[in-house]
């Protein structure tokens, strides 16, 4: 069999001569190694990026779209006992600039911006001439103006939200509310005293923003902002207005230097009103003098004068040294103690203890006072809170001056009994009078509204003594007393006048402090009202003439505001009323 073999025109693939070429084995291995090496390099790089350098890269990535935003918190409000606003924060804008960028503004733009901000172009130029990366142009710009500035897109000009404090009641409550500085820092008054609870704590959150700046996701922990707590004062803005306007009227009428008035609720020691004159507008504090800023009722002391007398009388009654109607010989209206002589403004004859208070006899009071040892007197004054700060938590409270009893001379003990040689603040005096209003208990005072049970007072006198003293105080404010002008139509009131000489450079000058501290209504006391007028120069200088009428107006208005039922027949007093304030 002939097998015709196909002529071989080539080679079978496996016999291909090319394959026969013996390639060196290392070449293929080389390629394999190279590829492997490249692959390892990729893996290594991947490992480096993903594991070793991860944090850095993650951070870079986050910084492209993650944002920490601060959530602002507002400062707490200060409101009065009825919720009326005394201090509120509202957002304003700060306009700031990057000076380098802002200098590219054209002259026209500068004029526009300066016009909107109510400043001169030169001022604006000065602001952006500094070599810094940040400069304030104007702070506390109203939101409307800020929006118009934003719409103009001035180069390099930016804005930021901040809060501004407003005081709707203005000068009326300036001293008690105080004010804050530009960064929400309390500088005076309640704003300073309650800084910690009023202050808000800003929160923060971390978010993802998209390209257009919208927040698309919350990531990580958010810290919620804590708004400052509201402070509710014991103040009643109606009574405060009354006290403020009457005080102002009295100061202006008598051409006095200054004045203060305090209204205290005797049920729980709340301060319903505290006014000072002169005052200032806390919303505009450009030109302030120290005199305007002083909260005299709390931070100034004065020699109280006769307002002090009832305490000495009360101590004598309490110790059984005298009775309500014990007769004391005050003739001839003068008395010599050691080297000095004291005298009455109007000489009296024999007076009962009640009449000594009613007529305000210095001689009578001194005679009662000299029946005590200095220590007994000192203990009395000390227990009434004189010589100690009243502990209101208010900045600048003074303790007054009560010298240690060990070096009292008899003349000093006598003058102290009628309020000379001892210095107190008006608020200490008003507080001390709560012992008569409260059946012998001295009440702690509170600036803050008290919602729970009233605090307990410290017993100083027996209820019997307090009742007798109230009767004496009512006589003093009666037609025969030193302050008939302090009467209030429809209510029985009692109180004591004080007309004290002022000490200037260690000697008594012919300048006076006229004051009146009273209680109303006498049948069931609800209020202690204290009025002090410093250096009255026109229309008399006696406490009854100067501070009495203001006391009458404030007390009458406050009692009606509080809805206290009248305890005196109205007809009696109808004749001299009708000029009441609203």
């Amino acid at each position, binding site marked *: 069999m002939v097998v015709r073999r196909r002529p071989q025109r080539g080679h079978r693939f496996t016999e291909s001569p090319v394959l026969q070429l013996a390639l060196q084995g290392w070449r293929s291995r080389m390629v394999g190694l190279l590829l492997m090496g490249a692959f390892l390099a990729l893996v290594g790089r991947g490992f480096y990026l993903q594991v070793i350098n991860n944090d850095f890269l993650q951070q870079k990535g986050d910084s492209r779209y993650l944002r920490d935003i601060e959530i602002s918190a507002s400062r707490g409000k200060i409101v009065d006992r009825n919720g009326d606003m005394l201090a509120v924060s509202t957002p304003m804008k700060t306009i700031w600039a990057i000076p380098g960028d802002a200098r590219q503004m054209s002259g026209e733009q500068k004029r526009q911006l300066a016009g909107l901000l109510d400043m001169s172009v030169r001022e604006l130029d000065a602001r952006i001439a500094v070599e810094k990366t940040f400069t304030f142009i104007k702070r506390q710009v109203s939101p409307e103006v800020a929006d118009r500035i934003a719409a103009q897109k001035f180069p390099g000009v930016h804005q930021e939200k901040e809060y501004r404090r407003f005081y709707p009641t203005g000068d009326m409550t300036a001293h008690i509310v105080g004010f804050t500085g530009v960064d929400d820092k309390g500088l005076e008054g309640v704003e300073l005293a309650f800084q910690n609870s009023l202050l808000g704590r800003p929160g923060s959150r971390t978010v993802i923003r998209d390209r257009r700046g919208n927040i*698309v996701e919350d990531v990580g922990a958010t810290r919620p902002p804590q708004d400052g707590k509201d402070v509710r004062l014991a103040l009643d803005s109606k009574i405060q*207005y009354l006290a403020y306007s009457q005080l102002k009227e009295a100061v202006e009428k008598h051409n006095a230097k200054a004045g203060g008035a305090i209204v205290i609720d005797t049920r729980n020691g709340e301060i319903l009103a505290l006014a000072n004159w002169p005052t200032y507008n806390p919303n505009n504090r450009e030109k302030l003098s120290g005199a305007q800023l002083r909260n005299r009722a709390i931070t100034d002391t004065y020699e109280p004068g006769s307002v002090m007398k009832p305490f000495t009388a009360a101590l004598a009654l309490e110790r059984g040294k005298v009775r309500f109607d014990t007769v004391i010989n005050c003739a001839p209206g003068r008395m010599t103690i050691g080297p000095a002589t004291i005298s009455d403004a109007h000489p009296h004859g024999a007076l009962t203890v009640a009449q000594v208070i009613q007529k305000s006899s210095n001689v009578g009071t001194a005679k009662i006072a000299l029946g005590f040892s200095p220590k007994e007197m000192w203990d009395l004054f000390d227990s009434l809170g004189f010589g100690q700060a009243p502990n209101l938590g208010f900045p600048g409270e003074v303790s007054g001056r009560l010298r240690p009893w060990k070096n009292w001379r008899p003349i000093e003990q006598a003058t102290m009994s009628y309020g000379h040689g001892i210095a107190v603040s008006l608020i200490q005096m008003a507080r001390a009078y709560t012992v008569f209003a409260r059946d012998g208990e001295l009440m702690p005072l509170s600036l803050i509204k008290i919602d729970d049970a009233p605090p307990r007072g410290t017993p100083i006198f027996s209820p019997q003594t307090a009742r007798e003293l109230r009767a004496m105080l009512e006589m003093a404010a009666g037609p025969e007393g030193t302050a008939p002008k302090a009467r209030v139509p429809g209510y029985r009131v009692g109180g004591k006048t004080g007309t004290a000489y002022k000490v200037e450079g260690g000697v008594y000058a012919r300048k006076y402090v006229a004051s009146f501290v009273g209680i109303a209504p006498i049948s069931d006391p609800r209020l202690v009202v204290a009025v002090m007028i410093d250096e009255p120069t026109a229309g008399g200088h006696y406490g009854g003439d100067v501070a009495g009428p203001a006391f009458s107006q404030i007390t009458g208005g406050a009692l009606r505001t*509080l809805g206290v039922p009248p305890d005196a027949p*109205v007809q009696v007093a109808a004749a001299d009323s009708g000029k*009441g304030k*609203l």
Partner: protein
Amino acid sequence: MLRFNMILLLIVVVCALGVVTSQHRARKLFQAVEAEQERARQLDIEYGQLQLEMSTWANHPRIEKIARERLHMVAPDALGRVVKADPAAGRRGR
């Protein structure tokens, strides 16, 4: 086996698309919430400003001025007054 894998692949793709859409919707909703919260804040601020404005208009000196000067009102004298007793004010709770 192959078909089973294909089905799994399909499910995975569908799930992936689902994740994408739900993420998108979540972000949309989140934005809406943000916008509403911002509005709430704005309204709150406005409320504060209005309260401020109200107390500025309603302050006592202004009321007294208007009552006296524009409306010619006077305070009634003691005879013309009826005091409504506050029951709590009458007796001291002791």
